[in-house]
C-alpha cells in the first residue's frame, strides 16, 4: 500500500480539482459538462497522435519525435490530393505515401543507426520531424487546406430538459471519438490476432530474442512505422477536418508528449486514457483555474492550457515514472 501512496495522492488531488468547479459553483452543471466533454474530445485527438508514438516505441524502443510531423505530412497529402480526386482515393493514396515514408525512414535513418543509443535515435527522429515539416510545406504548400468529411459543423443541443440551455455537442467531435475507438479496436485485433502483430509484440519484448527465432527486424520496423503512418493519416484527417490542414497541426501534436509521459510509453490503453486526462485537465484548468490564479495572485494573465498539460504529466512522472500503464523498468546492477 505504501508504494501506492504517491499515485493515490495525485489521483485524489486530480479528483478534487475535477469536482471543485461544481462544488464552488464556478460553473453551472450544464456548462461544467460541456467543458468536460470538450476536454474529452480534445483528449481523443491527442490520443490519436500518442498512439503512433506508443506503437513505434513498443516495437523498436525509438521515441518518435516526428509523429506530429507525420500527422501534418499525411494530412497535407490527403487534403491536396483530394482537390483532384475523391476523398477516399486521396486517403488510399495517402496511405501509400505513408508506407513509402516508412520505408525511406527505415532505410535511410533507422538501419544505419541500428544498435545505437536511444538518444541517438531520438535525435534522428527530431531531424526527420524538421525535414518532414519543411518538405511537406515545400511540396504541398503552407496555406490552410480543408478536408471535408461531410459532417455538419453546426452544434447540436442535447439534454435540454435536464440542463438549463442544454448541452452543446459537435458532430465532428463525436465522429472523432468513434474513429479513435475504431482505430484502437483494429490495432488491438492486429496485435493480438495476426502473425505480424505477434511478431511485432515479440520484437517489442526482446529484439535479440525475436531476431534469434528468425523475425526480420528491418521488415518489422517498416511495418510498425507504416502502421504509425496510417495512424498519423487518420489523426491528420480527423484533425484536418476540424481545424483545417496547416503547419500548426504539427505543433498541436506535441501535446502527445505529456500524454505518453502520463499514460506510459508502451501502453496503447495508456495513450487513450492519458489523452483523455490531459484533454480534460487542460480545458478545466483554462476555464476554471486560470481566472482564479489571475485573481488570487494578481497575475498578468494569459492562457495556461499549453503548459498545464505538462504540469499534469510531471505530477504523474514524480510518483510513477513509467507512466500510468507503462512497464516498470528494473535493471540489475
Amino acid at each position, binding site marked *: 500500500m505504501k508504494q501506492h501512496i504517491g499515485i493515490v495522492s495525485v489521483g485524489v488531488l486530480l479528483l478534487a480539482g475535477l469536482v471543485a468547479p461544481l462544488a464552488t459553483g464556478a*460553473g453551472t452543471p450544464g*456548462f461544467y459538462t*460541456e*467543458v468536460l466533454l*470538450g*476536454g474529452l*474530445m*480534445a483528449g481523443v485527438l491527442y490520443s490519436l497522435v500518442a498512439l503512433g508514438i506508443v506503437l513505434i516505441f513498443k516495437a523498436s524502443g525509438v521515441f518518435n519525435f516526428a509523429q506530429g510531423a507525420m500527422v501534418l505530412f499525411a494530412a497535407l497529402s490527403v487534403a491536396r490530393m483530394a482537390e483532384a480526386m475523391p476523398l477516399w482515393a486521396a486517403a488510399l493514396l495517402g496511405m501509400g505515401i505513408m508506407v513509402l515514408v516508412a520505408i525511406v525512414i527505415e532505410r535511410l535513418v533507422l538501419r544505419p543507426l541500428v544498435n545505437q543509443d536511444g538518444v541517438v535515435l531520438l535525435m534522428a527522429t527530431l531531424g526527420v520531424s524538421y525535414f518532414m515539416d*519543411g518538405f511537406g*510545406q515545400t511540396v504541398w504548400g*503552407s*496555406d*490552410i*487546406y*480543408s478536408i471535408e468529411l461531410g459532417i455538419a*459543423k*453546426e*452544434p447540436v443541443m442535447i439534454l435540454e430538459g435536464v440542463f438549463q440551455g442544454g448541452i*452543446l455537442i*459537435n458532430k465532428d467531435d463525436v465522429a472523432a471519438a468513434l474513429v479513435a475507438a475504431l482505430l484502437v479496436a483494429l490495432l488491438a485485433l492486429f496485435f493480438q490476432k495476426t502473425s505480424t502483430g505477434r511478431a511485432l509484440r515479440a520484437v517489442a519484448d526482446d529484439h535479440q530474442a525475436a531476431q534469434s527465432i528468425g523475425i526480420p527486424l528491418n521488415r518489422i520496423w517498416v511495418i510498425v512505422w507504416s502502421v504509425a503512418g496510417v495512424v498519423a493519416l487518420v489523426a491528420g484527417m480527423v484533425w484536418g477536418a*476540424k*481545424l*483545417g490542414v*496547416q*503547419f*500548426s*497541426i504539427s*505543433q*498541436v501534436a506535441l501535446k502527445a508528449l505529456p500524454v505518453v509521459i502520463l499514460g506510459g510509453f508502451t501502453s496503447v490503453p495508456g495513450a487513450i486514457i492519458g489523452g483523455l486526462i490531459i484533454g480534460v485537465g*487542460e*480545458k478545466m484548468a*483554462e*476555464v476554471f483555474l486560470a481566472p482564479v490564479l489571475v485573481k488570487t495572485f494578481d497575475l498578468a*494573465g*494569459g*492562457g495556461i*492550457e*499549453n503548459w498545464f498539460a505538462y504540469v499534469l504529466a510531471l505530477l504523474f512522472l514524480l510518483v510513477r515514472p513509467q507512466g500510468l500503464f507503462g512497464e516498470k523498468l528494473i535493471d540489475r546492477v
Partner: protein
Amino acid sequence: MRQATQRKLLAAAAGAVIAAAAATASAPAFAQAKEQFFPLLPYRTGPYAPNGVPFANGYADYLKLVNARDGGINGVKITFEECETGYATDRGVECYERLKGKGPTGATVFQPLSTGITFALTDKAPGDRIPLVTAGYGRADSVDGTVFKWNFPLGGTYWDAADILVQYVGKKEGGLDKLKGKKIALVYHDSPYGKEPIPLLQLRAKMHGFELMLLPVTHPGVEQKATWLQVRQHRPDYVFLWGWGVMNSTALKEAVATGYPREKMYGVWWSGAEPDVTPAGDGAKGYNALTFLAPPGQGQVHKDILKYVYDKGQGSGKKEDVGEVLYNRGLVSGMMAVEGVKRAQFKYGKKPLKGEEVRWGLENLALDAAAIKKLGFTGFMDPIQTTCVDHQGSHSARIETWDGKKWNVAPEVYESDLQIIKPLIRESAAKYAAEKKIPVRDCAKDAG
C-alpha cells in the same frame, strides 16, 4: 644603372598592377553605388505562413514594379533579399543582423510584420540607425517620435483599432453611453501583439461602463475550445478578435461550433483577410473586421503590376491573388517605404541613401490624395502626413464584412479618438524613455 632601370620598370609594373586591381575592385563598387537595398523579413513557412505569404508577395512585387516601370527610385535601382523568420522573434533578430549591413548603404528600412520582432528590433534600430516601419502593428506608443525616433507605425496602431471598434459598436447600440452594462470579449493571441489593445479597451470600459472579458488564446491558436466555451457561458454582446494566422479561421470555426453569431464578431485588421475566412467556409458569413490600409480589390497600381511584373513572369505569387487584402497591405507597405526614400532624396540627393537619411524621409512623409492618385493607390489608403511628433500620420479605418465570397467594405470612415489615445501614448512613451534612459527629442530644434 641597368639595375636601377630594372627596379624602376618593376616599380612601374607593380604600380600598374595595383592601379588595375584598384580599378577592377572599384568597378563593382561603382556599379553598386546606384543601388538601394531593402531587406525583407517574410514568413513563408510555419503556422503564420497563410497570412505572411500574401503580404510578402505584395511587398516584393511593388519593389519589382518600381524597378521595371520607373527604372528604380529616381534612377537608383532597388535590390532586395528575403530572410525567412517563420514569425519567430529569435529568427527575426538573426535575419536583421544578417541583412542590416547589406547593400552599398546598408539596409534601407525593416518591416518585420511581427509585433514580437518589432519589440526586439526597437532596441536595436537606434544603434544601427535604421528605421522600422510597422504599418498597423508594433508598439502603439511608438507613434511618439520624440521618444521612438526610429519607429514608424504608419497608418494605424492597435489602440486606434480598438478605439474604432468600440466607437463602431457604440454607434450600433445607439451611442457610446448605451454600452453601459454590455459585455465585450477580447479573444486575443497570447503574445505582445494580442495584448497591445488591452490598455485602451480597459480605459474605454471604465469610461462607458461595459464589461471587458479577456480571453487569451495560446500560440499558434488552434486550441480554442476552452475559450469559446467561456464565450458560450458568458454570451458577450460582442467579440473582438485579435488573432493572426490560423487562429482567425479556428476562431470562426469555434464560433460556429458554439453557436456564437458571426455578425457580432469584429476582427482587427490582421483578422480580416481571405485566409482568415475561407477555411471556415459558409460559417464565416456575416463576420466583420477592420480595414485600414489597402482594402481588397484592384486599382491602377495593380494594372501596372500585372503588366510590368506578372506578364513578364516576375510575379512573386499567383496572378489571381493580386488584390487580396494582405497582398494589398504588403503593396502599400512597400510603397510607403519607397516613398520614404523618395522624400529623403529631396533632401540628400538622388543617390543611394543610408537608413538614417531614409528615416528623415519617413518622418516628413506627405502623401495627399493627389500623390496617392499619381501612385495608382486611390481607394487603397487615406492620406498620410507624418511629423517629428507623429510617426503614424493617419488614424482612420473602415469596417468590412465577409459575405461568403468576398469582403464588402462599408463606405463610412472612422477616426480614432485622439483625445483619448494621445495621453495614453504620451504616458507610455515617457515610461519607455525613462526605463531605457532615452533623451526625449525637442521637435522644435531636432526635426532632422
